[in-house]
């Protein structure tokens, strides 16, 4: 089934460790996004990319980095995980410069101890 694939599904990580969440889409969408979903805070945008080779900061970028080497992949890296980064992370994509809705992955549940 076409769409967005996120990996891993869930992860428990010790504080201070480095972690990369993977996101791959096969819809050839230009734009991709990373959100975190926290109880009572809804969806907050971490980073986004309007097209391959470009990235931008969202609402809560601190402690996270992204890269967009090609159209399909948009990994999110936590360089040194902290407990406040415990969350559910969603990757999404859209056609970008047209007014089209976003398509979401299944999410990665990350727990930082």
């Amino acid at each position, binding site marked *: 089934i076409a769409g967005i694939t996120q990996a891993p599904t869930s992860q428990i990580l010790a504080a201070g460790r480095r972690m990369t969440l993977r996101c791959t889409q096969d819809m050839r969408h230009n734009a991709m996004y990373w959100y975190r979903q926290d109880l009572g805070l809804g969806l907050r945008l971490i980073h986004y990319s309007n097209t391959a080779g470009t990235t931008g900061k969202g609402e809560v970028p601190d402690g996270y980095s992204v890269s967009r080497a090609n159209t399909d992949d948009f990994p999110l890296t936590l360089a040194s995980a902290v407990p406040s980064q415990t969350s559910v992370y969603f990757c999404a994509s859209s056609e970008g410069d047209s007014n089209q809705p976003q398509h979401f992955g*299944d999410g990665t549940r990350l727990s930082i101890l």
Partner: protein
Amino acid sequence: AQRVTQPEKLLSVFKGAPVELKCNYSYSGSPELFWYVQYSRQRLQLLLRHISRESIKGFTADLNKGETSFHLKKPFAQEEDSAMYYCALLKSGAGKSTFGDGTTLTVKP
């Protein structure tokens, strides 16, 4: 800057009752507005968008520019409507969306 407000974090209704999930926005331009739904243990998915003016799963939403609202309505709620609902605003041509904090709807039997 644009903002989306969903004033109710939790909403509970009985099966067969009407339901309205509120969404208000602030944006100086012409917005594109969406409702997304997340059923238990599933990914977020688009429910409907204002420009399509269609009814999906019995839900409708009308953009009221005067009141800057995009409330989601269904005349007769079903148990399978229980889910988290997010209202989102897309700046025209910008790609990025601003999401509200979400409303968890519970439809009781």
